[in-house]
C-alpha cells in the first residue's frame, strides 16, 4: 500500500464511494425517470372518484398490500386465473404500465397470501359479495385466513380528509378539478369506510376493457339442448364448482343471504315467477348486463360477472341443466332451499 493510497484519505475515499454507488443509481433509477416509458397513461384514464380514493386510503392504512398484489403478470396460467383472457384486446390480458399513472404510490405488493386484485372490478363486480366478505371473510370463503374488517362500517368518512387527499394528489398532477372537490361532501355524506373500500375494490382494473363477450340478444324461447342429458347435468355441477359459482351462490346454488340469490327457487332476479332456461343462460354468459334484455332490474348494482369468455355455450347450458335438476330435486323433497 503506497503512501498516497486512497485508504489513507477518507475524503477522497468517500467521494469515490459516492461516485461508485451513483453509477447504478443514475442508470437504473434516475435516468429511466426522464423517459416517457416510465410515465405512460392508458387512453381515457380517470383518477379515482372521491369515494374510491377514500377507499384506497383505507386499503393503504389497513396494510392490504402486505397480502394482496395488484399486478397480473403476462403468464398464461395467471392470465387465465385472473380472467384477463376475457379481454377483447390481447394487451388487456395482463396489467399495463399505463393503468397506474395516478397511483401515488404503486400498490403492486410483493406477496400473494391472498389473490391478486388487479382485475377485481371485472372478476367480482358484486358489491354485495365484497360487503359480506369484508365483514366476515370466513362466512363467504370458509377456510380463508383473512382478518375481519367489520369495524370499517362504524367509521364515517370525513369530507375534509378526502378533500385534503385530493388536494395533495392534485399538486402531484392528478387531475382533480375544483368541481370534484366541491362535490365531495355530498358524495361522502352518510358513507362509511367500508363503503369506500368496497367502491375502491370494484374499481380495480377498470381502466382497460376486460369484459367478457356479452350475451347479446336474449331469446327466451331458446330450448336447453341438454335439459335431460344426465352427463351434461354432472358436467354442469363440475363447472359450477370449478368456476367458483358457489363462492357467491352457495354450494348447492341455494344462495347466500345478502351475497347472491338462490338459483333454484321460484324467483328470478328477485321477482316471481321464475324465467325459462334461456334467461339463466343469458345471465351466465353476459353477467348483470343481460338484465336489461330480460326486463328485470334485480338489485341496483348487481354483481354477476360475465362468463361468456370462459365458457362455451354448451358449458353454460350444462350449468343451467344442473340448476334445473337441482331445483326439481328441492321441489320433490318439499323444502325449497334458502327460504
Amino acid at each position, binding site marked *: *500500500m503506497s503512501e498516497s*493510497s486512497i*485508504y489513507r484519505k*477518507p*475524503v477522497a*475515499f*468517500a467521494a469515490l*464511494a459516492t461516485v*461508485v*454507488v*451513483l453509477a*447504478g*443509481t443514475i*442508470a*437504473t*433509477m434516475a435516468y*429511466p*425517470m426522464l423517459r416517457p416509458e*416510465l*410515465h405512460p397513461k392508458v387512453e381515457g384514464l380517470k383518477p379515482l372518484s372521491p369515494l374510491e380514493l377514500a377507499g384506497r386510503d383505507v386499503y*393503504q*392504512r*389497513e*396494510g392490504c398490500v*402486505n*397480502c394482496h398484489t395488484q*399486478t397480473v*403478470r403476462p403468464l398464461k*396460467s395467471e392470465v*387465465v*386465473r385472473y380472467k384477463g383472457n376475457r379481454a377483447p384486446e390481447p394487451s388487456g390480458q395482463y396489467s399495463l*404500465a399505463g*393503468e*397506474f399513472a395516478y*397511483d*401515488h*404510490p*404503486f*400498490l*403492486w*405488493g410483493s*406477496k400473494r*397470501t*391472498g*389473490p391478486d386484485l388487479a382485475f377485481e372490478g371485472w372478476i367480482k363486480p358484486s358489491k354485495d359479495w365484497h360487503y359480506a366478505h369484508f365483514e366476515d*371473510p370466513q362466512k363467504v370463503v370458509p*377456510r*380463508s*385466513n383473512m*382478518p*375481519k*374488517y367489520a*369495524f370499517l362500517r362504524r367509521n364515517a368518512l370525513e369530507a375534509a*380528509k378526502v378533500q*385534503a*387527499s385530493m*388536494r*395533495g*394528489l392534485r399538486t*402531484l398532477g392528478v387531475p382533480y378539478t375544483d368541481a370534484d372537490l366541491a362535490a365531495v361532501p355530498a358524495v361522502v355524506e352518510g358513507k362509511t369506510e367500508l363503503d369506500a373500500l368496497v367502491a375502491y375494490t370494484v374499481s380495480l382494473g377498470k381502466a382497460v376493457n376486460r369484459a367478457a363477450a356479452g350475451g347479446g340478444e336474449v331469446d327466451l324461447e331458446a330450448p336447453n339442448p341438454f335439459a335431460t342429458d344426465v352427463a351434461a347435468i354432472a358436467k354442469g355441477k363440475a363447472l359450477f364448482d370449478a368456476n367458483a359459482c358457489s363462492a357467491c351462490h352457495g354450494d348447492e346454488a341455494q344462495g347466500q343471504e345478502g351475497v347472491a340469490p338462490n338459483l333454484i327457487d321460484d324467483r328470478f332476479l328477485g321477482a316471481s315467477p321464475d324465467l325459462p332456461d334461456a334467461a339463466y343462460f343469458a345471465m351466465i354468459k353476459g353477467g348483470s348486463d343481460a338484465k336489461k334484455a330480460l326486463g328485470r332490474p334485480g338489485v341496483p348494482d348487481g354483481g354477476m360477472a360475465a362468463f361468456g369468455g370462459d365458457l362455451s355455450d354448451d358449458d353454460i347450458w350444462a350449468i343451467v341443466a344442473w340448476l334445473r335438476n337441482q331445483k326439481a330435486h328441492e321441489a320433490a323433497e318439499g323444502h325449497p332451499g334458502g327460504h
Partner: protein
Amino acid sequence: MNDYRYDYRTVQGFILSAMFWGVVGILLGLLISVQLWAPAANFAPYLTYGRLRPVHTNGLIFGLGVGAIFGLFYYITMRLCKRPLLFPRLARVQLWLFNAGIVAAAVSLLLGQTQSLEYAELEWPLDLAIVVLWVMLAVNVFGTILKRREEQMYVSLWYIVATVITIAILYVVNNLAVPVSLGKSYPLFAGVNSANVQWWYGHNAVGFLLTTPILAMFYYFLPKSTGLPIYSHRLSIVAFWSLIFAYLWTGAHHLVYTPLPDWIQTLAIVFTMFLIAPSWGSVVNGYYTVGQDWTRMRSNYLTKFFILGITFYGLQTVQGPTQGLRVVSQLIHFTDWVPGHVHMGTMGWVTMIICASIYYVVPRINGTELYSEKLANVHFWLVLVGQLLFSITMWITGIRQGWMWKATDEAGKLEYTFMDGVIGNYPYWHTRTLAGIIFAAGMVVFVYNVLMTIRKGRAAQAAAGSAPTTVAA
C-alpha cells in the same frame, strides 16, 4: 483508557436497545405467523396482520438492525481510529432519540400511518427523525475518522463509510412525498416509476443496512475473535468496490414480469448474477481466514457463529440471484418462498453476526468474561435449527404454491383454485410458527447471557472496590 468509558456506555446503550427491539420484533413475528393460520388471532383495528407486519419488519430492521449498527459502528470506528468518538454527547443524544423514534414508529404503524412502501412505511415526520439520526451518525463517524490516530483505514471502515453515504441517498429519494396531514402523505412518484424507485430503495436497503454493515462487523470481529488475520487484503479490496458498484443496479429484479420496461428488468437481472462474485469474495475470504486454523471452530465458541453466518450469506447470495432469473421468478415470486429466502438472510446471516459481535464486545467493555459459553452454544444451536426449519419449510411450500398456481389441464383450465393453494399452506405455516418459537427461545438465551455478563462485570468491579475501569480490547 478512561477516555473510552463514556463512549462505551453509549455503545452498550445501543446494543441493549437493539436487543430489546429485537426481542419485541421477533415476538411480533410469532404473532403474525399465528395470524396467517388462525385469523381469529387478528384483533381489529390495531392488531391485524396488515398493520402488524410492518411493525415486525421495521422493528427488526430499524430497531435491531440499525440499533446494532449505531452501537457497533461506534465501537469499531473508535478501535480502528484509536481514539474516542469526536462528539460523545451527540452520540448519547442519538441513543435517546433513537429509542423515542422506534416507539413513535411502532405507534404510528399500529395507527395505520403508512406510505405502503416496503421497508419505507414510516410517514414523513418519522422520516425526518430518521434523517436527523442518520446525520448524527454521519457526523460522528466521519468526524472521528478525520481525526483518527491510525493512518490506514481498515476494511471495516470502508464498509461503514459506504453504508452511511448510500443509505442517506436511498432514504431521502424514496421518501420524497407531499404531506396532507401529520400521518398521511402521497409519494412524489407514481405507478411504474414509483415501483422502480421503491425497489431501487428496497433492494439496497437490504444491501446497505443488512449486508455492508454486517460485512463491516464480520471483517472486524472475525479476526479479533479468532486471532487469525483476514486471509487476503487484495480480495477484500476487489470484493468491496465491486459489491458497492453492482448492488445499485439490481433493484428491478423485484419487478420481473411486472409492467416495468423489460430493459430495466434485464439490466437488473444481469447485475444480480454478477453480484454473486463480490459476495462470494467475502465468503471465500472468511473461509480462508478460519482455514488458517480450523481447530478454532472447536476452541473458540465465536468462530462457528461467524462461519455459519458467512455460509448463510453465501447461500443467500446464490439463492437471491437465482430468484432473479425470469424462469425461476415466474414460479416462486409472490409465494412463501420469498419470506423463506429473506429469513435465511436475516435470521442466519444478519442476526448471527450481530449476536457474535455483541458477544465479543460486551465482555470487553465490562471488563469481564462471557457469563456462559455453554449458553452461547445453546443459543447457537437453537437459532440454527429454528432458522433452517423456517426457511426450508417456506421453500417447500413456496414451490408447491407456485406450482399449484400454474397447474393447468390439457384444455388450459386451471387445476386448482386460489383457496386450494392457501389451504395447502396451513401445515407449513404451523411448522413455521414452531420454527419461530425455537428461534425466539435461542434469542432469549442470548439476551439472558448478555445481561448476566454485564451483571458479572459490575459485580467484579464492585468486588474490586474501585471505580469501574474499562479494559481496552
